[in-house]
């Protein structure tokens, strides 16, 4: 029953917010929905931990440890984004940031807010559907839905550049997903020749995984390549990453945070599902080679753009391309440590990345620009909380030790050295160091420095609470991981490894 409620609540919240029209009601609905979804996600993970996989509608919705983890992460990020969004859009509304040439502010602003508050729950609904759908076809439909729901969120500000970003996002996403569909069809074909059933269950992952060993070799090889290209595009793996910097810098910050911490997880979730099938059928060797190449490529592509970046919003996009690359690399290294490292990295990344986006959002709203050239530095004087949060998040995201991302990167490196991938590991470490230096130079000069005399920014209660809440979670996570969370990650990793 939890699965149905998990999907139904956001699905209903979208149109409800559309109907309510007034801002306080919409905010209330949004907050209530995501709070409820978060509790349900926690309950689901507890249930999965105790009683194993939960299924509903005889297998149509299916939640094992892996999907429970993805649901939990998506719910957490959605909750934090919704809290931040309240403060963010109030600030936008007050400083007429919507569109310069709109005379009648009030009415049009509400129209844009309605668009946000109705589309965001649908966006979260599609992400949850991705995690819970057992059928790979429905998985594809759900990921397509995430793209469609988020296109109009990217064009939120209606500027020319946001139109351009949305168009690129939609077209490249569409192309990627059609490749993914082709991969799904080929997988179904190779399964169809063995099972022969016509029913819907023919494409259910739980059914496919049992007799994946007998699938046809060449079909599965082609299917995996297409799936990697398809879901890799949604995850922003190089060379399909080109839409990411534009979409992240043009979308409003809560949407960008959801894209970075939500869609990335779902895309990689899809990739892992297929990776399990191919490694059962072809053995891990074939998959890991291509995954390592693509992982190193995305980290390598991120390095030059981090070093010579002009805008800090785009800097964050390249950081998430880099982290996408790290997770694909971890999957490529494989082995129990590799998969555990990847899932740990996914968890810590989904918790750390929103803080980076929120503090960047505060700074952009305060400075009215996201270009380093225009920002005169010394932000710590006018906005101490966001400045300090931004510096701390930068250190956390670039994987410097006291924070948890270093632990997951270290586990991934252990898997790399254990598996004998010496050169990729050394490249991995050098990319990490290069990206750290690029980030530090940019952000330290932005946050620290002499006082430029900007008026002190009054970050409202909502924004400050979301920043502080996330910061404490990140610091605590560096030293103490709650036992149930770690056992959830552990069982998800065992699921992926044992299924192989």
């Amino acid at each position, binding site marked *: 029953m939890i699965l149905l409620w998990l999907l139904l609540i956001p699905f209903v919240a979208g149109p409800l917010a559309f109907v309510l029209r007034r801002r306080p009601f919409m905010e209330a609905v949004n907050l209530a929905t995501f709070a409820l979804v978060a509790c349900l996600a926690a309950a689901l993970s507890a249930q999965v931990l105790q009683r194993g996989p939960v299924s509903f509608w005889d297998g149509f919705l299916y939640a094992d440890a892996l999907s429970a983890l993805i649901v939990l992460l998506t719910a957490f990020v959605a909750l934090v984004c919704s809290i931040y969004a309240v403060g963010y859009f109030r600030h936008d509304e007050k400083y007429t940031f919507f569109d310069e040439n709109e005379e009648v502010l009030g009415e049009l602003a509400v129209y844009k807010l309605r668009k946000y508050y109705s589309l965001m729950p649908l966006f979260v609904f599609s992400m949850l559907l991705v995690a819970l759908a057992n059928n790979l076809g429905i998985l594809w439909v759900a990921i397509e839905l995430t793209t469609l729901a988020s296109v109009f969120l990217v064009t939120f500000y209606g500027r020319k550049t946001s139109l351009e970003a949305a168009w690129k996002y939609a077209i490249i996403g569409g192309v*990627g997903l059609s490749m993914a569909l082709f991969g799904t069809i080929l997988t179904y074909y190779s399964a169809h020749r063995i099972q022969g059933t016509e029913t819907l269950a023919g494409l259910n992952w739980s059914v496919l995984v049992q007799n994946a060993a007998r699938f046809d070799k060449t079909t599965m090889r082609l299917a995996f*390549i297409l799936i990697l*290209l398809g879901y890799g595009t949604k995850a922003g793996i190089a*060379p*399909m990453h080109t839409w990411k910097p534009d979409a992240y810098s043009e979308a409003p910050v809560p949407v960008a945070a959801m894209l970075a911490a939500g869609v990335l997880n779902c895309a990689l979730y899809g990739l892992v599902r297929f990776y399990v099938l191919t490694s059962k059928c072809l053995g891990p060797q074939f998959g890991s080679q291509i995954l390592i190449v693509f992982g190193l490529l995305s980290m390598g592509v991120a390095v030059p753009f981090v070093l010579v970046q002009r805008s800090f919003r785009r800097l964050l996009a390249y950081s998430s391309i880099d982290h996408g690359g790290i997770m694909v690399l971890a999957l490529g290294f494989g082995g129990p440590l590799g998969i555990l490292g990847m899932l740990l990295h996914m968890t810590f990344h989904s918790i750390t990345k929103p803080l980076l986006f929120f503090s960047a959002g505060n700074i952009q709203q305060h400075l009215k620009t996201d270009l380093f050239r225009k920002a005169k530095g010394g932000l710590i004087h006018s906005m101490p909380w966001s400045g300090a949060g931004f510096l701390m998040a930068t250190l956390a995201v670039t994987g410097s*030790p006291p924070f948890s991302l*270093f*632990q997951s990167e*270290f586990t991934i490196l252990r898997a790399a050295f254990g598996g004998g991938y010496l050169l990729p590991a050394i490249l991995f470490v050098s990319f990490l160091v290069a990206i750290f230096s690029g980030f530090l130079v940019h952000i*330290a000069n932005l946050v620290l420095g002499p006082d430029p005399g900007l008026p002190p920014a009054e970050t409202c209660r909502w924004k400050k609470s979301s920043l502080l809440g996330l910061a404490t979670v990140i610091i605590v996570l560096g030293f103490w991981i709650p036992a149930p969370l770690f056992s959830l990650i552990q069982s998800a990793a065992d699921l992926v490894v044992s299924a192989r």
Partner: protein
Amino acid sequence: MNQTPINGLFLGGLISYAAAGLFGLAAYQRRRATRIVFCLFACLGALLEGIASVAAILDANETLISIPSGVPLLQYTFRLDPVSCYFNLALAVVSLAVSVYSLGYLDGFDVRKPRGIFCFFYSLLLVSLTVVFTANNAFLFLIVWEVMALSAYFLVSFDHERDESRKAGILFFVMSHVGTGALIVGFLLLGTWARSFDFSAFHLIAATLTPIQQGSLFLLFFFGFGVKAGMIPVHIWLPAAHPAAPSNVSALMSAILIKTGIYGIIRIAFDLLGIPPLWCGLLVLTAGTASAILGVLYALIEPDLKRMLAYSTIENAGIILMALGGAMVFRSYGRPTLAAVALVACLFHIFNHAIFKSLLFLSAGAVVHATGSRNLERMGGLIRPMPLTALCFLVGAIAISGLPPLNGFVSEWLTYQALLGGFGSTPSLTRIVFPVAGSLLALTGALAATCFVRAFGIGFLALPRSSQAAHVHEAHPAMLAGMGTLALLCIGLGLGATLWLPILDPLTNQLLGVRMSSNLVVSGGLALSSGSAAGGTVAPAALVGALVLLALLPGVLCAIWWRRGRKIPGPTWDCGLPGLTEYNEYTATAFSKPLRMIFAALFQPRREIQTEFEVSAYYPISVRFESEVEPAFETHLYSPLKDRIMARASRFRTIQAGSIHAYLAYIFITLVVLLLFGVRS
């Protein structure tokens, strides 16, 4: 003494450091009392750590402490073996003195500065340093290594309003991160071969490593730890970061942060890699000699007081590495006794350098705090208003130049004996390396003496060169107390060297299996011998006694022949000019001019003089003199490297040039290539 009190002391020390940090962060801004409580907690922590390490060194078996950790992949295990406790003791002593000093120094900060943040990161630095020395697990070591770099970064860029300290902080953090990258790869390689990340496990498989593995691992670790130890090619962050930090932090950094690099090299060379091949020792020796020579040469021409001290830290790190290199070479030739002498010299110099370098930085901090500028050309005549600070600086200067009665001389003497012994014992051509290194060490020592004559002479003596230097008051009593303890320690270590050597016995026993103090200390604990039968001896305490006795002779002579009251104060000879002003005094740049001319090949000095005159060139109205020395490593190595990286990175920007067709083309080509070739593999 069994285990439990040592564990209690050690953990108690860590807890009180942490308490100082949290208390400082929370309650700093309000009253002055909170400042005292912060310093008290820090001193308490230092005391506890000091006692714990001394007890652990003297205790026969090493203590292992493990605390349950929240993170499943990570175990908090500490190993208090003699080597780590020795470094921990040095840290405890220096942090005690610096904490006492900070009580006075922090009053000087202007009120707007967030002193609470400073206290938090200061205690975080102390905690991370303690754990770096005692961590027994490679993963914990790497985490705490970066936390140390992180807290040092925030302390260096504490007054980030100034561009110089912000840039210095970034340079420091980036270079230390590059070093940590090398360490991560090294430890992971070791971890996978040993199938566990405990240092004891590394120790077990040390014997099974092949020479190639040992060599490559050593290079990785030597680079990683060398960056933090301020070795020559990777030293450029040190002269930038130390002066930018507040003085009590730069004292702690110069004294202890440098030693974490050296601790790492010692741990790797002697404990974790078995016996590395010969060329590793020679590499360390040559790197040490280069660092010593270039460090002191750059220190000589530096007008900025704290930058000069930072360069002299590089010089002393070089001397320590020379002794260490010597020890490694002797060990690879199978001469443990000689290696033990070299190792004793290296360890003794580590402790001495920690003491006198922090003393120098603290007194420099007091001077800079009083005069408001770090430029030697602005100082002068400070010995009258600040007699005690001047005395402390003088004691530090004598110690660092290695002049007899103090501790610098004893450790340099031991290094000479080790190098001298090296000539006789090594068979092949490498025997010539040792005396040459010895003579370069002598050159370094003499240049260091010149450098500190210049610093003390120009900085403290004769007439004040600027108005601020004229109106100066003595440092805060807490600052004087901090400096005083260190000065007394310098003198004590110098005279009581023979008492100090037995403490080094457990260390040499752990690393080399040889106890050297019996044949190093001869004639009833009075004299220090060089280990060989009829080797040279030196008795620092006896020397001072003889000096005092002999001083009676001129005293008596003067008393007999010279009637009282005939000492008349008069003006210095001013060649008939209307009285001597501070413009007649020698300046720091002039003092180092002969050496700048002699070593012109290295410095490439550039001088520019512009004179304004009305009637004829011989009667100038105003002369403008500008002299500049080329920073060799920045201009020839680092800035070309940075420019090339940035140029190539900006060439990469064209792949995100905005055209959607190009983006689709990337995907299309990847698809077609993978369809055709991916399926085949």
